[in-house]
């Protein structure tokens, strides 16, 4: 029996929330995001704005050049998170098989429900709209891949300046034919860059993929080739899985005043790294992924992460990785509002020892000694010279 999978995607989510707080925005061309002076980007834009060629992720300054009357609304992220949680709660009333993939998107497996899938979608859309006033589009299909594409195509068929609130159903058995005429960039996982590569090889439409034999595809796309062939036929056996909240240890600092001083920023990162390291060691855990979070003064927030060859619980490794990630994003003088460091992909503490480099063992001995002193005499008993300056003038969040 084929499955019934829904993909729910809130329509212009941030804008829809803003309209709730300021009804005068309704029908107007407006966008949320950073200010044009601060090199901000469009995080969401109303459908009226889209008619003027504005789209999300576009630099705000460019958006204003395209349409100078565009209203720029400062984003209220806390509200978005709150509403997102409420939407997900409504979805979870329907089924526990929910996989949230971003703040405004989720998959649902409703195979076990007796109603027709489209009917379920219609009811859900209505309920979210009636309860929260938020419009959404839903793709209905037999798997995640097709449901996601259904939403995208459903939305793209909509024209006009109001919300699409699309529901598109791709019946089981019609997947391949549905996909065949679609441009290659509609395939989930193929971004603009890879789409270029496909086009260069003469693959313009998703159906074109099926014209080539697997070995040829393997030559060009390597391991991805057999997936590609399956996807081009609309085959996707992945389950809707509750995404276990990433187990991670992290900490962040919000500055009282936006800070652009390299040394102070790095010292903050060092301080947070030490805190994270201490917490990991305290729980006898290690993590393989180091992550930094940076919030710019315009509230735009980015996270960057890197996976290490071996898990770590050492301040030094965390700091060195986090500061490298940070410095890739930061330009001298650029101000920062918040900075966070986290370690994820947590597991048991293990380490492949090295024959040539004994820094792990040395650092471990040092940290063991420091942790023991902190345990006995408190946090201020001993600290690294580099941290001895008082930097408590910033709020520790």
């Amino acid at each position, binding site marked *: 029996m084929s499955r019934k999978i829904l993909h729910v995607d809130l329509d212009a989510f941030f804008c829809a929330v803003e309209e709730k707080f300021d009804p005068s925005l309704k029908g107007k061309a407006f966008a949320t995001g950073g200010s044009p002076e601060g090199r901000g980007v469009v995080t969401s834009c109303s459908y009226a704005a889209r008619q003027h060629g504005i789209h999300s992720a576009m630099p705000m300054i460019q958006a204003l050049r395209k349409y100078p009357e565009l209203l720029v609304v400062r984003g209220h992220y806390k509200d978005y998170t709150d509403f997102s949680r409420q939407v997900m709660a409504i979805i979870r009333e329907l089924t526990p098989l929910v996989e949230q993939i971003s703040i405004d998107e989720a998959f649902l497996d409703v195979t076990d429900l007796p109603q027709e899938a489209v009917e379920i979608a219609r009811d859900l859309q209505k309920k979210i709209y009636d309860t929260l006033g938020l419009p959404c589009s839903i793709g209905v299909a037999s798997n995640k891949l097709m449901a996601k594409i259904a939403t995208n195509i459903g939305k793209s068929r909509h024209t006009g300046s109001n919300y699409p609130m699309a529901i598109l159903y791709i019946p089981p058995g019609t997947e391949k034919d549905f996909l065949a005429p679609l441009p290659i960039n509609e395939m989930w996982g193929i971004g603009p860059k890879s789409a270029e590569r496909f086009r260069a090889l003469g693959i313009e439409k998703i159906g074109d993929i099926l014209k080539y034999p697997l070995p040829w595809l393997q030559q060009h796309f390597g391991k991805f080739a057999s997936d590609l062939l399956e996807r081009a036929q609309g085959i996707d056996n992945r389950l809707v899985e509750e995404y276990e909240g990433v187990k991670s240890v992290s900490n962040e600092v919000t500055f009282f005043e936006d800070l652009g001083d390299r040394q102070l920023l790095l010292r903050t990162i060092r301080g947070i790294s030490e805190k994270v390291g201490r917490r990991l060691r305290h729980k006898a855990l290690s993590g393989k992924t180091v992550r930094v979070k940076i919030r710019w003064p315009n509230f735009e927030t980015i996270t960057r992460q890197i996976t290490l060859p071996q898990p770590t619980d050492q301040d030094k490794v965390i700091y060195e990785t986090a500061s490298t990630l940070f410095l890739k994003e930061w330009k001298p003088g650029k101000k920062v509002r918040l900075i966070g460091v986290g370690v994820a992909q947590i597991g048991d503490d293990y380490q492949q*020892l090295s024959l040539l480099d004994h820094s792990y063992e040395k650092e471990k001995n040092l940290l063991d000694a420091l942790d023991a002193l902190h345990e006995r005499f408190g946090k201020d008993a001993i600290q690294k010279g580099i941290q001895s300056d008082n930097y408590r003038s910033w709020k520790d969040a």
Partner: protein
Amino acid sequence: MKLTVSQAQLAHGLGVVSRAVSPRSTLPVLNNILIATDEGRLRLSATNLELGITCWIGAQIEEEGSITIPARIFADLVSTLPGDKVSLALTVRTQSLNIRCGTSNFDIKGIDAQEFPPMPIPDLASGVELNVADFKDMIRQVGFAASADEARPVLQGVLMEINENQMSLAATDGFRIAVRNAELSNAIANPVKVIIPARSLGELARIATDGNETVTMVVPQDRGQAIFHMKDAELVTQLIEGNFPDYRAILPRTFKTRTIISTTEFLKACRQAEIIAREGNYVIRLKIQPQEGGPGAVEFTTQSEEMGSGEVVVDANIEGPELLIAFNVRFLSEVLEVIGTPNTILETNANNTPGMLSPVGDESYKHVIMPMHLG
């Protein structure tokens, strides 16, 4: 250029050289294979500037000449040709190669052979003769221990040292070291000490055919290259510059616990454990348990949070104190696959110092592995 070759030989020759083609090179001629007449034979060459491979095949040559042809197109085409005789003819004016076979007739555009990087010509008299089968065996026992980490180029290579008639290969990725010694039949005058990319040695092992054939290694002075010459093929590789770690200082000299264990049983235990261990961190724990007045046993255990756990016990001859030590199971499997004797010696000191594996009754191979630390 005008000649006839056998389709099978041409396909084989292209298979030999095509691994040196750099498919994504910005220099178009490096995507090509050089085809040239060479003293009554047909020469095929490819290079990515780090590694170059040449192969000679028999041909009936009517007219001398040379051209370079896109490697993929040529190889794909040759592999599908129907007949057994292939005629190749160069049209100099258009620099295109006409390929005829049975009723197939193709014209492929090439690039002037002058643009192809010249391959060095080895002075074979100054070379060292190595037995192909022995040398391949050495490469197989050592090469895999080299690092794949591009950040540490020296560790991507295999250190080759020859003094008089003593030769050694060593490779390390920082976590393990493989060392293989051998005796040459003839002593050489000038000692050799070079770091050869492990990948190049791997390719050499691939193209060197077994039998009693020899390979002649030439290291021209100050060229940063090594050339391996065989009857029908030649491989040129750039050498890696830098200081190879002083591995002899790292190899432990004494051990407290000495375990002699069947190589197949040891490998079987590792393979079984890996089924679970690969789901986690590849950790295998060895509980080495000597027994008073009799053989002891090694208990191999593995566990993964998601998959479960396992335990295999193998009898072993153990001298010395009991020890619990953890290793990366892949490191163990890889060395056990090349040990080559029915029994293996595992020598250890403590759970945070290196362990050494070597074949029983064969002093020429040593493999040292650093354990894993478990918190």
